[in-house]
């Protein structure tokens, strides 16, 4: 590249081919996860779990376990402060979970006691020697049953087991339905889903005599875990260091307290030796949390030309035993159920109900996959009922740039219209399909980080500190957590672009509460926009300091301005005139009397409503084949049309979209969590089916070029939102292939076979009638 092109070139690092900066560590086996951590003198912990869905703990006798050679300690709820905690810290009544309950268990698998021993094997043997007397209580598993008058009370003082309700309304719903030419009502059920992170929950806690705690923990937000642990241990946040350097996946399941971190901490505080607890796969299935199962009832009114006049939706969700992030999922499902459309009137009532099952919480998509499964299928059926083109019907109601979701959100960038063009062309090019094949698509949108401060953090939502060494190398400290989504690389790209150096100049430190500024972490698709803004601002701060010295050194006429690109500090109008980056850094460091240049930046969204500062838009198309005899679904092809604003980390973006597709398709037709009497029937990877390599279709992505003013360099959400449309797209493909309507997900083979039978019966009767 010649230097003369520098001034014109807008971006030199962003959206280029950048290899993930953690890549070498990950492809050579060097990356050390919590699962791999081994400290001197470390003990191994195991957790005894409740076999009952609902029971009072009367007595725990650990004397036999303690007598076993090699066992160092056994702890129960009585060894804790007994604090009821929850991640919705702002609301005391939603802090309802003791990780080691003192007097009552509420689901099968809930921790009851924890053992530390010199080996994992001995700890496991000790579990069998702990005697627990329970008084088994009547239990309830389904939210509709749990709301009945005669249902057992799961949490004292919570009437009818109703944990949270959420209500959203705008426009005139009644008038909309009055004016509607066609009204359709449907009921749906969307199942749970396991996060199934490849690294199960794991923690190594080490408490030392000066009263300080260090915890290695596999999580999505080191800061949240630090703050939550301080709360339950009665310690100051600053006395607890949480390290989450390499994390084997999160997907919404790793930013609350879990048994591994809590029990290892209680044990190490008793023993002053490091204690490691890693969940088995079975424990990870039965005793973490899951995607929220939801019963949806939807009533939609449209004009005969397909204008969306009114919608009313009601959700009853199975909250399981505790709140977790469930309150957020309950709100977001209701909000995104309206997406990505303009409604004359919209009303949502959501109820989250406690049951004696595994707690439900956030999972990639955060309630929106359920919302879209119901919304986008019903819209497809409405289009068919009215003989309308499903793309054009949706397009005329779609969000557009500048739209305000009344009282909820302001939409700045929106590439939905172009997505419809791309999808229409893909479907048209497919032409006539072979028998038993169908194409379906679904629209969706998603947020770029949440605004509502339910955690009650006193800190800005994201912050970054950038330090420039005398030799031009750069250290970036961010509190964001890298869980595989590529945030470290994304932030390095933003830093290199802003400073004008190269990605290889930058080291990123993240996920360590002692060394990194507080950041809410990796959830709700927040890091690219929020942490990205903080990083950009920190780099602008540092760059400004550097350029002051460059201006002084170069002694230019005041009308000239300077910039830095690709390690070249230059006059914007005369890019060939300048000096190398390293030289300027040296000058500036000397000019600062030997201080390193440090830039600071932070970001908290303001004046953007209560939900999110920006929204991504997408359409997911799928082509499937169905075996009518067995009901088996095969994914044949797919197309993703996606608007994430300006892509930052191109390789990361494609990976996130492909990965979202596999998880979302799994939710659509494979990933099923059957419970019997409160017990999960398939807590292992033989029986819990998910997408394998052989089941993946091609996943081409069409990126739509938009610019989001609130995001760094125009960027917004990517990677979580695409979990939302896919289950509905599969449902719609089945509808077009076979004419059957699937109202429950995951859509399992027997459901297709039964629906085909019913349809054959109906067709027969209809024929006879004629």
């Amino acid at each position, binding site marked *: 590249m010649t230097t003369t092109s520098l001034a014109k070139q807008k971006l030199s690092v962003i959206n280029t081919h950048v290899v993930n900066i953690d890549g070498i560590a990950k*492809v050579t086996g060097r990356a050390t996860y919590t699962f791999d951590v081994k400290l001197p003198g470390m003990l191994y912990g195991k957790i005894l779990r409740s076999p009952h869905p609902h029971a009072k703990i009367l007595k725990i006798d650990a004397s036999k376990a303690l007598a076993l050679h090699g066992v160092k300690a056994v702890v129960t709820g009585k060894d804790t402060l007994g604090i009821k905690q929850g991640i919705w810290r702002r609301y005391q009544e939603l802090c309802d979970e003791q990780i080691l309950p003192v007097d009552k268990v509420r689901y099968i698998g809930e921790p009851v006691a924890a053992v530390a021993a010199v080996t994992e094997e001995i700890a496991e043997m000790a579990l069998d020697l702990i005697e627990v007397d329970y008084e088994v209580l009547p239990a309830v598993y389904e939210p509709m049953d749990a709301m009945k008058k005669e249902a057992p009370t799961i949490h004292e003082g919570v009437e009818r087991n109703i944990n949270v309700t959420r209500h959203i309304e705008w426009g005139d719903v009644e008038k909309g339905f009055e004016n509607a030419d066609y009204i359709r009502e449907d009921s749906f059920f969307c199942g749970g889903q396991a996060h199934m992170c490849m690294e199960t929950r794991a923690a190594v806690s080490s408490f030392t005599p000066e009263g300080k705690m260090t915890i290695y923990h596999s999580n999505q937000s080191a800061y949240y875990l630090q703050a939550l642990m301080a709360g339950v241990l009665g310690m100051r946040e600053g006395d607890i260091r949480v390290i989450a350097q390499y994390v084997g996946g999160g997907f919404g399941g790793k930013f609350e307290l879990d048994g591994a971190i809590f029990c290892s901490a209680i044990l190490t505080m008793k023993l002053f030796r490091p204690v490691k607890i890693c969940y088995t796969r079975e424990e990870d299935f039965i005793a973490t949390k899951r995607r929220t199962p939801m019963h949806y009832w939807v009533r939609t009114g449209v004009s005969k030309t397909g204008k969306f006049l009114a919608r009313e939706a009601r959700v009853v969700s199975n909250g399981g035993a505790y709140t977790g992030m469930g309150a957020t999922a309950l709100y977001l499902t209701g909000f995104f159920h309206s997406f990505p459309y303009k409604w004359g009137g919209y009303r949502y009532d959501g109820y989250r109900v406690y049951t004696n099952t595994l707690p439900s919480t956030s999972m990639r998509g955060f309630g929106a996959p359920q919302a879209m499964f119901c919304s986008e299928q019903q819209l497809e059926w409405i289009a068919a009922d009215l003989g309308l083109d499903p793309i054009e019907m949706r397009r005329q109601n779609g969000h557009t740039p500048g739209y305000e979701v009344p009282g909820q959100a302001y939409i700045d960038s929106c590439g939905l219209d172009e997505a419809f063009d791309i999808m229409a062309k893909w479907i048209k090019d497919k032409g006539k399909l072979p028998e038993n094949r169908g194409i379906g698509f679904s629209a969706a949108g998603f947020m770029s980080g949440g605004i509502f401060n339910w955690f009650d953090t006193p800190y800005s939502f994201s912050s970054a500190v950038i330090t420039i060494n005398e030799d031009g190398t750069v250290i970036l400290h961010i509190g964001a957590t890298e869980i595989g989504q590529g945030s470290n690389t994304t932030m390095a790209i933003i830093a290199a672009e802003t400073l004008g150096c190269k990605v290889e100049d930058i080291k990123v430190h993240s996920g360590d509460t002692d060394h990194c500024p507080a950041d809410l972490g990796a959830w709700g698709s927040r890091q690219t926009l929020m942490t990205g803004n903080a990083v950009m601002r920190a780099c602008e701060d540092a760059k400004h300091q550097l350029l002051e010295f460059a201006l002084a050194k170069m002694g230019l006429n005041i009308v000239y301005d300077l910039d830095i690109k690709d390690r070249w500090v230059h006059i914007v109008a005369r890019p060939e005139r300048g000096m190398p980056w390293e030289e300027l850094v040296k000058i500036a460091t000397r000019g600062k009397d030997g201080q390193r240049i440090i830039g600071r930046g932070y970001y908290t969204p303001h004046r953007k409503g209560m939900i999110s500062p920006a929204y991504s838009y997408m359409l997911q198309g799928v082509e499937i084949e169905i075996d009518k005899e067995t009901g088996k679904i095969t994914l044949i092809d797919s197309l993703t049309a996606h608007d994430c604003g300006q892509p930052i980390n191109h390789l990361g973006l494609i990976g996130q979209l492909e990965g979202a597709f596999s998880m979302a398709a799994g939710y659509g037709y494979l990933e099923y969590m059957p419970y019997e009497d409160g017990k999960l029937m398939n807590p292992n990877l033989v029986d819990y089916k998910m997408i394998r*390599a052989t089941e993946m279709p091609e996943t081409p992505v069409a990126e739509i070029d938009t610019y989001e003013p609130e995001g760094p360099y125009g960027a917004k959400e990517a990677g979580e939102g695409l979990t939302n449309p896919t289950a509905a797209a599969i449902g719609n493909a089945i509808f077009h292939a076979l004419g059957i309507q699937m109202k429950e997900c995951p859509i399992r083979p027997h459901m297709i076979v039964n629906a085909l039978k019913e349809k054959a019966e109906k067709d027969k009767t209809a024929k006879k009638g004629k």
Partner: protein
Amino acid sequence: MEKKAIVLNVNNQDYELYINPKTLLVEAIRDYIGLTGTKRGCETVSCGACTVMVNDMAVKSCSILAIQCQGMKIITSEGLEKNGQLAAIQNAFLHEGSYQCGFCTSGMLMATSALLKETKKPSKNEIKESIEGNICRCTGYNSIVRAVEGVANGKYKEGSL
């Protein structure tokens, strides 16, 4: 059970171990030898995170006893790199973005390395079948398939980045 002394050859290095005969190969590699690049993700031989190469064949190291592997050549993800030079498949993974959280990556690398030892030009289906027993929750697999194709067609070679 009485402990036994065995010799395991891992990444061209002999390790003398004194272990319980029922010790799994994955436990020997991770807990006794201390090579933690090989991961574990289940107890049911279903996830493939612990895949290593034993005599050039992909083996889930949780499905075999360490003692059975005496006299065999075991290669883990740490053994792919030679003196700081990455193997072609590692370069391919880097440039195709064939990993995200990285927890399945070692297993994926070993499963696909074994395939490429056996078949120089595998078809797309053969590549997919070679990693059918390996779960990746992040990538959706296609980037891994692209990486193997890239090695097979010579796009990626061994060496530094």
